[in-house]
C-alpha cells in the first residue's frame, strides 16, 4: 500500500515539475521580450529622445487610461456591442449563405463568382456609401461591421462544406438519407473547423468594421476617441483608447475560442 502511494506521489511530482517547466518555457520568452520593449520605450521617452506628444511613455499612457477610464469605458460600449452584433450577424448570414451556396451546384455557379468579386473590393472604399445609405448612427456602424466580417465566414463555410470526402456522400445516398439530413449530420460537422477559422478572422474584421464606421461618422465609440485625441495631439489618450480596443478584440476572440472548444468537444475525434 505504502509503495503504491509513494509511486503515485512520485509520478505526480514529476508531472507537475515538467508542467511547470513547459509553462515557463511558453510564458517566459514573450514576457521578457515585452518587458524589454516597454522598458526601452519608457527610458527613451523619459530621456527626451521621444517627444511626449508623438510617443508618450507607457507609464503616462497607463496613467491616462486609469484617469479617463470612466469616459473610455463608456465609449468602449458602443464599439464592443457594435462588434458583437456585427460578428454575430455576420456569422449567421455567412453560414446560412455559405450553406445555401454549397447546397446545389447551380447555386454555387450562380452566386460564388459574385461573392469572390465582392471580396476583392477594398471594403473601406465603400464606407462613405454606407454612410449615405444608413446614416451616422450605431446601426450604420454595425451594418458596416457585418459587411466586412461576413466574407471570411462565407468563404470558410463554402470551403468547409466541401471538406467531407466524397465517399461520405455516397454512403449517405446509399442509405437513402435525405440531402438536407446529410448536410446537417455529415457535411456540417466536417465543415466546423473551417467555419471556426473563418469566425476567428471575422471577429477581428468585425472590430475593424465598427472602428472604421466610428472614424467616418465620428459620433461615439473608441474610434471616435482615437480620431478626437489625434486631432488634439492627446497621444496618451489615443494610445489608451487603442489599448482598450485591444481589450475588446481579446474578449471577442476569447468568446469564439471558448465556443470552438465547447463545440469541438462534441465533434471530437479523440
Amino acid at each position, binding site marked *: 500500500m505504502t509503495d503504491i502511494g509513494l509511486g503515485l506521489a512520485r509520478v505526480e511530482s514529476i508531472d507537475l515539475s515538467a508542467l511547470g517547466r513547459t509553462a515557463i518555457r511558453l510564458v517566459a520568452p514573450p514576457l521578457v521580450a515585452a518587458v524589454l520593449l516597454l522598458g526601452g520605450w519608457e527610458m527613451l521617452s523619459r530621456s527626451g529622445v521621444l517627444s511626449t506628444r508623438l510617443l508618450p511613455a507607457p507609464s503616462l499612457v497607463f496613467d491616462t487610461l486609469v484617469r479617463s477610464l470612466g469616459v473610455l469605458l463608456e465609449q468602449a460600449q458602443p464599439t464592443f456591442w457594435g462588434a458583437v452584433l456585427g460578428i454575430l450577424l455576420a456569422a449567421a448570414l455567412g453560414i446560412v449563405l455559405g450553406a445555401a451556396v454549397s447546397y446545389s451546384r447551380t447555386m454555387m455557379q450562380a452566386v460564388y463568382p459574385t461573392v469572390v468579386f465582392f471580396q476583392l473590393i477594398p471594403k473601406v472604399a465603400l464606407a462613405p456609401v454606407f454612410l449615405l445609405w444608413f446614416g451616422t448612427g450605431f446601426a450604420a456602424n454595425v451594418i458596416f461591421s457585418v459587411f466586412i466580417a461576413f466574407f471570411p465566414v462565407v468563404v470558410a463555410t463554402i470551403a468547409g462544406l466541401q471538406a467531407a470526402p466524397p465517399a461520405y456522400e455516397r454512403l449517405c445516398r*446509399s*442509405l*437513402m438519407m435525405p440531402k438536407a*439530413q446529410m448536410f446537417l*449530420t*455529415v457535411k456540417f460537422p466536417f465543415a466546423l473547423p473551417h467555419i471556426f477559422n473563418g469566425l476567428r478572422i471575422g471577429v477581428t474584421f468585425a472590430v475593424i468594421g465598427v472602428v472604421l464606421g466610428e472614424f467616418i461618422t465620428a459620433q461615439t465609440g473608441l474610434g471616435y476617441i482615437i480620431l478626437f485625441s489625434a486631432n488634439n495631439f492627446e497621444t496618451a489618450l489615443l494610445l489608451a483608447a487603442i489599448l482598450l480596443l485591444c481589450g475588446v478584440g481579446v474578449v471577442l476572440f476569447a468568446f469564439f475560442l471558448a465556443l470552438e472548444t465547447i463545440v469541438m468537444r462534441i465533434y471530437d*475525434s*479523440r
Partner: protein
Amino acid sequence: MSTAATSRRTIEPAFASPAAADYVAVDRVRKVYGTGTRQQVEAVAASTFTIKAGEFVALLGPSGCGKSTLLMMIAGLDLPSEGAIVVAGRPLTAPRAQTGIMFQDPTLLPWKSALDNVLFPFQVASRPAAGGNRLRAMALLDRVGLEGFHHHKPGQLSGGMRQRVAICRALVYEPDLLLMDEPFSALDAITRDEMNLVLMKMWEEEKHRTALFVTHSIREAVYLADRVLVMSRRPGRIVEDIRIPFARPRGLEIGETVEFNRICGHLRGKIDHRSH
C-alpha cells in the same frame, strides 16, 4: 494432358450450374463518361451477368477497369449509360433500402463512437428503427472481435478495426444484398487475411445474403467467393466467369492447396490476356 483435362473439369463455367433465382441481373450495361465524341471515355463495355440469391460473387479485375463503376451502378449510386440492372425483380433506378455497402475507405464519422457509427443507418427516418437495433449493433461488434471497443472513436482504432466497424454498419439493417468495393485494399497483407476471415465468418453465419465483392486481389477473390467474374482492362468487359469449388466454412489454409493455386493461375492468365 491429364492435368489439362482435370483442370477443364474442375474450373467449371458458372452457367453449367442448375438455375436458381437471379437476384441481380445486369443486362448489357455500358457506362460512358463525358459528353461530346472527343472526351468520351468508355468505363464499362456492354456487360451481362447475373448473381443468384445467396451467392457470393467476386468481381476481379486490374485497377481502373471499371469494376467499381459497375458496383456503383448496382448500388443505384450511378446510372448506366445503356442497358438495365434488375435487383430482386425490380429495375434499379436509385439506391434501395435493402442494399448494404462497404467502400475502400471505412467512411466512419470521426466524432461518433464505433457503436454510434454502426447505428448511423437508423438515423434515416425511412428505415424502421426497432428497439433491438442497439442490441444487434453491439452483438455485431462483438462478433467481429470489437468487444471492449464499442465506445472508442475511429481515431482510436486501427485500420482493420475501422473496416470491422464498417462491416457491422453494412449488416446492421439486415440487407439482402451486400456490395463491397475493395474494402480491404488499403490494409496490410496480414490485416487483410484477418479481415477476409472475419467477413467470411459473418457472411457464413448470416444466411441467404447475396454478396458482390470487387477486388483486384486474385487470392482474395478465390478465397471469399462462390463464383469469380473477371473483368478485362478498360473498357471493362466480363471475360471469365468461374465457380470456386471449395466447401464452406473455409479456413485460410485452403490457400495452400494445389487446387487453389491452380485456380489463381488460371484467373491470372485471364486478367493478363488483352482482348481487343
